[in-house]
């Protein structure tokens, strides 16, 4: 049982106005509520502070070059693709699973949607053919993962590891390891446009995050995701079809990978079997430092978005200072460990405080 934290399972903090309605709430009860509320907001606040510190370092070391609207947009554009994948990853991890195949699915979707055949079709009919192809491939891969995990009873780690290998392999076969250039100009024009100064890619990321938040925190599906991840047996006894739910969770990650593939294809104007390399690690890292429990039952979209922004900003600061990607990787590892250690300390403290 995961009782490591007393923070609510999701960031849907109650409006304080609700407290008096409880009527018979004892003084200790409401004191505890504040504590719980405080620690939930506090956790996300901690991530915000970390982000601000990073920005401070950026301004201090790179000055104007960092603190410009252009650079901010660059960071956001960079964060968009991995952000969309991470939102999907939050769902599957909250539901008690893991998906190692996200990067490979992004690659396969990007390749499949930019083959000569697909592009010809897109030119004949409409550029959205490319989008539909990517989404279909992504969701299809996710479905296969989900079916293997819930009906085939293959451990998620193994099932998605197999998908990682074979999806990227398939992408290589289809593309013959060549980078496929996108010729459909309407497609690239649409996704590379700005709306009131904000890149379409960033808007897509924001939309995915908002929809993800609503689904996870405000729908029966989301509520059941917490239950399936937190205590599958209790969920089953409550009448939830745990297996079907699990399939849906993997399909959601797959869909997110499809969306990310479209964004990546638009950003780079290419489809390639090397797209999305190591996305699985970046996504899991962002989800975990965001505060989602790897063991399931607890998840936060806001935390994931902040986690993604922290990593992307870090990357940007390093690039601005001409530091190698190797140094960057070391820093990333240290941040993950520090974040998890910090979270455990905080969890232990709030546990003793409430009992």
């Amino acid at each position, binding site marked *: 049982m995961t009782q490591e934290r*007393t923070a609510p399972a999701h960031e849907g903090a109650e409006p304080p106005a609700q407290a008096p309605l409880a*009527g018979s709430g004892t003084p200790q009860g409401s004191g*505890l*509520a504040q504590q719980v509320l405080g620690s939930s907001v506090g956790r996300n606040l901690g991530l915000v502070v970390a982000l601000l510190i990073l920005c401070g370092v950026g301004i201090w070391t790179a000055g104007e070059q960092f603190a410009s609207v252009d650079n901010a947009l660059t960071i956001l554009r960079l964060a968009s693709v991995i952000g969309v994948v991470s939102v999907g990853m939050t769902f599957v991890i909250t539901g008690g699973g893991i998906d190692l195949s996200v990067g490979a699915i992004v690659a396969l979707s990007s390749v499949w949607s930019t083959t000569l055949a697909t592009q010809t079709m897109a030119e004949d009919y409409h550029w959205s053919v490319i989008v539909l192809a990517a989404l279909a491939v992504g969701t299809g891969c996710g479905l296969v993962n989900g079916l293997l995990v819930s009906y085939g009873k293959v451990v998620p780690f193994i099932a998605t590891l197999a998908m990682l290998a074979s999806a990227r392999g398939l992408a290589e076969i289809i593309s013959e390891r060549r980078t496929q250039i996108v010729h459909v100009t309407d497609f690239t024009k649409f996704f590379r446009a700005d709306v009131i100064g904000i890149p379409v890619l960033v808007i897509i990321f924001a939309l995915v995050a908002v929809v993800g938040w609503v689904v996870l925190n405000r729908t029966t599906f989301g509520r059941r995701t917490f239950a399936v991840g937190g*205590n599958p047996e209790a*969920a*089953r*006894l*409550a009448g939830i079809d745990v297996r079907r739910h699990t399939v849906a969770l993997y399909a959601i990650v797959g869909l997110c990978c499809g969306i990310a593939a479209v964004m990546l294809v638009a950003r780079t104007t290419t489809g390639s079997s090397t797209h999305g390399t190591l996305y699985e690690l970046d996504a899991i890292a962002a989800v975990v430092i965001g505060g989602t429990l790897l063991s399931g039952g607890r998840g936060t979209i806001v935390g994931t978005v902040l986690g993604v922004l922290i990593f992307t900003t870090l990357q940007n600061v390093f690039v601005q200072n001409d530091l190698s990607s190797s140094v960057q990787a070391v820093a990333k590892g240290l941040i993950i460990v520090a974040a998890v250690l910090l979270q455990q300390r905080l969890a232990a403290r709030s546990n003793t405080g*409430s009992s």
Partner: protein
Amino acid sequence: MAEQAREQQELLLHMRGIVKTFPGVRALDGVDLDVRAGEVHCLLGQNGAGKSTLIKVLAGAHRPDEGTIEWRGEQVTLANPNAAIARGISTIYQELDLVAGLSVAENIFLGHEKSRGGLLKRSETRAAARALLKRLGHGEIRVDREVGTLPASGQQIVSMARALSHDTRLIVMDEPSAALDQQEVQTLFQVIRDLTAEGVAVVYISHRLEEIRQIGDRVTVLKDGRTVATDLPARGTATADLIRLMTGREIEYVFPEGPAAATDSKVVLEVDGLGLTKKFADVSFQVRAGEIVGLAGLVGAGRSEILETVYGARKASTGTVTVDGKRLRAGSVQAAVRAGIGLAPEERKSQGLLLDQAVYRNITVSSMSRFSRAGFLDRGAERAQARELAESLDVRPTGVDRPVRNLSGGNQQKVVLARWLLRDCRVLLLDEPTRGVDVGARSEIYALIRSLATRGVAVVVVSSEVEEVLGLADRVLVVREGLVVHEGPAEDIDEHKVLDLVMEGSAA
């Protein structure tokens, strides 16, 4: 309520010849159960009689191998929990089936959330949860609080609110009073009376006979997976009759003859004033070399906790444990093991064995240093020693290289015993040594435990089966709600008296 009036009431549930087999165990062996609308039907039976399996069948969590279930005059199959819930059967499980990370309100409506078009109606959910808790006399439980932070009694209330949240015709309550205090039990009874007045039926499981007298209408007694008596009036049946029905056994186990009471041998284990906050208090006893001491009591009375505290797996809040005159550091398993204490835990598969490892590795895992030279294991010696032990304990099938997983429950238990034998244990703590062991193999395990004792080991046995404690032990301690309520030689007490002690709290 007049008898005739009750006869008129609709027969809600009619189960006939329910059989459920698990690998190695026939948990249900032909159970019949009739429940009428508006009655409180009590299920009685010792631990392992099949009560929990039966209610899981009723809840759709287990599918029976044989037998028929009629619900309101119509034959049904309860293929999954949803099928049972949809028909109006809800269940309050003993092991709490709540999601710790979700709030009180979220748990109550889990699986049948209040929503429109998939979007949750959150304030409505909270209001409804609040109303349910108020009805249970617990309006003070905040519905936004995370369930994992509630104490056990609070979680029990949430479980109940959840059962009430369904539109139900039958509520199954598995020991609902276990985590409640007197006041809360009375509130629960009031809720039950209100429900039955509305025509809802309640299947009530409890070990406390006084509760059954107070709230029950009819009693069905289960024993060894069978219905042995049904349609007994809850108030009119004598305690002695109920206990006789629960204990009368068709299968007799052979218990080894104990040697003449070893009152002169040396005291090996001495437990003095041992206590663990909220679990048990002031437990004192001595075990001599060659003696078997049994702890009897209900599940949750604190027996396992006492063993685990002696072993150092839990840190005692008061008292001391002494082995061979040497006092052990509290809360240190290492100290206990070094002093020669071995524990065979209740959950053999999860706590005791490396299931996928070979038999010999499971036997030698606690004595590894004996077979290592400069860190390298002498696997030949390991195998030879293990083989010798396995043969002397008659572990079957023979051959120490097969994974423990492939052995039967009884042979797995022998492997655990062999491990401690190899370590030359001074004290052996056995928690439910025959759980999951075939009826046939039990006598073998009993003989083995006795032979360990005759080699000079001090043995402490915990068992839910009173007969087992009495048959095996030289001396018996009866534990009720964390306190030792009786201590004495095994031959001075019988099964009825023990059951009386643990269930009513007073010797008849």
